[in-house]
């Protein structure tokens, strides 16, 4: 594409720019943009880069707190974990590419999120993911699961960062748009955190990493539109990853970061060289001049347009202190990476690009940010659904089935069943600090800070069933559930990252889901003093007009300051008592039981209101559980979520290898007692002599705590409910996913 292409309305439309947006560009330039300039505006003002539909709503979120060093707006969020250490973390989506090309899409999603973290000076220490696939019967599901899991493992395993946890759901709402959300957690010293503001004039700009090729051009624009039947044709816009280069890039960057050479650094993610150079210049209030002839190129004859819009992976842009150029060359050469000085910062406030002696772009930088569209899209309030009242025909026995069958059906359901087939493909133990991971079936991963006695707990959560039924309550619940999961380890929850996956924001009902989910999240963040420090928005997850269920995936991070006092789902002992903390009403609306056994919402349409979260009780219950862990009062902890008390008790039994006897300690019918999904609840295994103190202290604090059973034997039995051998239950739990993948 040469610079003298005539800009027609068709070309403007192909670039996803509206007529108004194009008018603004012409006004600010005082002339018609050339094709390169149009391309730059197009990607910078895409939904993906500009957050034009979401920005005004994201602003509402709590982003500040005692432990927040850097909130949203940088490559990743940064929190204080004491002793001069900082945790840097973020979650990001790679949904559209993963649907089109599952292996590369997922792999580069992992690569991209790691770069966001090590760009800030943090060595990645843990990876997590949150995956949503279509219903198992959908013809694409199996291939997508296999490809995505292979891609995540292929990248993370090679770079040598443990993939320690995650969640996987299957739902018909994701048939046409799967979600691949990857999270990375890194460790830095607080005085060695790097930012992206390019301060100072006349400083050299360095390009390091892989060469620039023609892959991924317009990836950001693809992620800003919905799919149709021809979406497979977008394969060329998917990037190709190379984890070996990423590993080299991490080590080389870490080595340069140990010196004082770097002023600013930014990875080349969506919109590649364009967004990295513009964001660095914009934040630093400077201009940038780059000579594109200096950019390392994979193919010959690349045009400025292609170079600026390429999304080739494993690349970084840095502004160095003058005089440090040789140091950078030496380090990156040592690691066999490309390194080139491609330009300088200037005082003009303009982005000036030259190519073969010609100026091919000369635009002011400020308007790209200042004038970026900030839309107030119309939205409608999501309809409120009624609760599901108890009635006797919900009882499995009365339905002509049995509690044993119901339990087995739930344990072998795609959402609950063991995800061993997935996590065994991820190296969870590399780096030598994984204290707990997916392997235990617990609530949160625990990763030690190397060489210390402290650890971070990490959890990713979202319950799309709840979000679809009530985006506000669902958003609230997703935040609260990560907080609860971190609490189960004894960690003090500190902050979250969010990955907000929604449909087409141009539809008022979808925009309504988005707005209400954010408001729900925010309510939880404020009540739990649990701010958002980083995140990502993925809209247009929609195919032929059918949107995904609203899916605000939350990644929470907490601190275990003393590894002599933490807890997991493992460790219940023969003769222990099971204590339930929290109120039980037997809430069945939008529960897994309602979906699997009663058949509600099977077609993806929600029928009943999800369980509300009482945030005040949430906080009190969680604070109490943490105190019990600190006082070493409990042998095992698990939160109650999908499948309620029954599934929580069964999962705890799988982790300890011991059975249990449960009793119904409520006024509710057995099925509601066992499978209801009331929020803010924990199941504890405590030694017999701790039962009274644990319950009486809870009562003194105004909390509900009741003994609900005992641990022991090899059967899973519930009073007037199920009674099956632990080994039988374990078999159906373990077998579903491998059987499905082999079928």
């Amino acid at each position, binding site marked *: 594409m040469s610079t003298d292409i005539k800009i027609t309305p068709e070309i403007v439309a192909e670039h996803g720019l509206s007529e108004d947006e194009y008018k603004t560009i012409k006004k600010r330039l005082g002339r018609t943009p050339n094709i390169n300039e149009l391309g730059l505006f197009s990607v910078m003002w895409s939904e993906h880069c500009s957050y034009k539909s979401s920005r005004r709503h994201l602003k509402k979120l709590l982003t500040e707190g005692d432990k927040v060093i850097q909130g949203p707006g940088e490559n990743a969020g940064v929190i204080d974990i004491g002793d001069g250490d900082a945790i840097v973390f973020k979650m990001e989506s790679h949904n559209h590419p993963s649907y089109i090309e599952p292996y590369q899409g997922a792999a580069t999603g992992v690569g991209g999120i790691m770069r966001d973290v090590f760009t800030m000076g943090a060595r990645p220490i843990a990876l997590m993911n949150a995956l949503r696939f279509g219903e198992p019967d959908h013809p694409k599901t199996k291939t997508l699961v296999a490809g995505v899991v292979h891609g995540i493992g292929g990248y993370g395993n090679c770079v040598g960062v443990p993939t320690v946890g995650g969640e996987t759901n299957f739902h018909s709402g994701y048939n046409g748009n799967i979600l691949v959300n990857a999270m990375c957690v890194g460790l830095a010293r607080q005085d060695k955190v790097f930012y992206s503001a390019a301060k100072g004039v006349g400083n050299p700009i360095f390009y390091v990493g892989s060469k620039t090729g023609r892959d991924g051009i317009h990836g950001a624009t693809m992620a800003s539109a919905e799919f149709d039947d021809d979406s497979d044709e977008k394969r060329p816009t998917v990037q190709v990853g190379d984890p070996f280069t990423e590993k080299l890039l991490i080590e080389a960057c870490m080595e340069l970061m140990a010196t004082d050479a770097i002023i600013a650094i930014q990875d080349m993610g969506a919109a590649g060289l364009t967004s990295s150079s513009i964001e660095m210049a914009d934040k630093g209030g400077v201009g940038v001049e780059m000579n594109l002839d200096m950019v390392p190129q994979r193919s010959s004859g690349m045009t400025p347009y292609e170079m600026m819009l390429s999304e080739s992976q494993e690349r970084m842009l840095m502004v160095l202190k003058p005089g440090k150029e040789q140091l950078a060359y030496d380090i990156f050469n040592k690691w066999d990476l490309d390194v080139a000085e491609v330009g300088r910062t200037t005082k003009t406030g303009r982005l000036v690009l030259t190519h073969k002696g010609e100026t091919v772009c000369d635009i002011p930088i400020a308007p790209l940010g200042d004038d970026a569209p900030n839309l107030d899209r119309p939205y409608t309030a999501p309809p409120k659904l009624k609760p599901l009242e108890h009635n006797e025909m919900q009882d499995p026995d009365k339905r002509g089935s049995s509690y044993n069958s119901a339990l087995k059906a739930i344990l072998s359901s795609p959402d609950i069943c063991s995800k061993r087939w997935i996590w065994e493909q991820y190296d969870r*133990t*590399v780096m030598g600090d994984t204290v707990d991971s997916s392997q235990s079936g617990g609530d949160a991963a625990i990763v030690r800070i190397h060489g210390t006695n402290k650890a971070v707990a990490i959890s990713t959560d979202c319950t799309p069933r709840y979000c679809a039924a009530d985006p506000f309550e669902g958003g609230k619940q997703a935040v609260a559930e990560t907080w609860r999961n971190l609490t189960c380890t004894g960690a003090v929850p500190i902050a979250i990252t969010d990955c907000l996956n929604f449909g087409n924001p141009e539809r008022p009902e979808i925009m309504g889901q988005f707005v209400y989910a954010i408001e729900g999240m925010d309510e939880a963040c404020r009540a739990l003093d649990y701010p958002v420090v980083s995140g990502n928005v993925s809209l247009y997850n929609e195919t032929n007009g059918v949107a995904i269920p609203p899916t605000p995936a939350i990644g929470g991070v907490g601190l275990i300051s003393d590894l002599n006092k933490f807890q997991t789902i493992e460790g219940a002992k023969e003769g222990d008592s099971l204590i339930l903390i929290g109120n039980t009403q037997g809430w069945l609306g939008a529960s897994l039981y309602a979906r699997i056994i009663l058949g509600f919402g099977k077609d993806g349409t929600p029928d009943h209101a999800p369980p509300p979260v009482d945030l005040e009780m949430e906080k009190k219950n969680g604070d109490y559980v943490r105190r019990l862990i600190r006082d070493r009062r409990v042998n095992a902890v698990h939160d109650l979520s999908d499948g309620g008390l029954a599934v929580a008790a069964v999962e705890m039994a799988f982790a300890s290898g011991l059975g249990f006897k449960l009793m119904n300690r409520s006024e509710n019918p057995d099925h509601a007692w066992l499978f209801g999904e009331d929020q803010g609840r924990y199941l504890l295994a405590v030694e017999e002599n701790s039962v009274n103190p644990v319950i009486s202290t809870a009562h003194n604090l105004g909390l509900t705590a009741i003994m609900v059973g005992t641990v022991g034997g090899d059967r899973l039995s519930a009073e007037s409910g199920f009674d099956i051998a632990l080994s039988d239950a374990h078999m159906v739990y373990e077998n579903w996913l491998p059987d499905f993948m082999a079928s």
Partner: protein
Amino acid sequence: MKSAVIVFPASNCDRDAQTALAKITGRDPLMVWHEETELPQVDFVVIPGGFSYGDYLRSGAIAARSPIVQDIVKKAKNGLPVAGFCNGFQILTESGLLPGALMRNKGLKFVCRPQKLKIANSDSMFTKAYGDETDVTYPIAHFDGNYYADDATISQLEKSGRVLFRYVDNPNGSMKDIAGICNEAGNVLGMMPHPERAVDPLHGGTDGIKLFKSVLESFR
């Protein structure tokens, strides 16, 4: 005992090995960059897991031809104790120090799990500290761990007691459940499981400690 860990560009268990050696030998190992042509004076060398040069071509194939590995081969033939874990095992078979090859796992998937093993021979410089103890669990994490050798080699290994570790519930299709072998002289060990990730009660257990203790005792 002075030890060294070889660092290839995409080694990723180099720190795991470093941590284990420092903890058990009481001395920090030397970290030796792959471009070095000569190994420093040490008593024991670990070739760590990872993907060495990205594992292009075949796992460990390029690394086996690197300058530092040439020097390791020379010194190992003169009796220097060498252990290769995971990718290190692949490099040792590619270099010819150990027989056989590691093919793609039978299930065609990467597999990471705590792996039960039987110590098949505790009369070796790498296993003697285990004494009568035969059941250990080390983490595994590999894609290409399916051990293969021709029948003559297998029977040679079996007869001379060079199979040191066997899998319980073979995870990858290895012949005769072979998880780890040594060379004829007994100074070179290659194994797919990660004993260096099993030296800490909070992470992977402590079953790997005695492997390093065995080597250490040889230098007392």
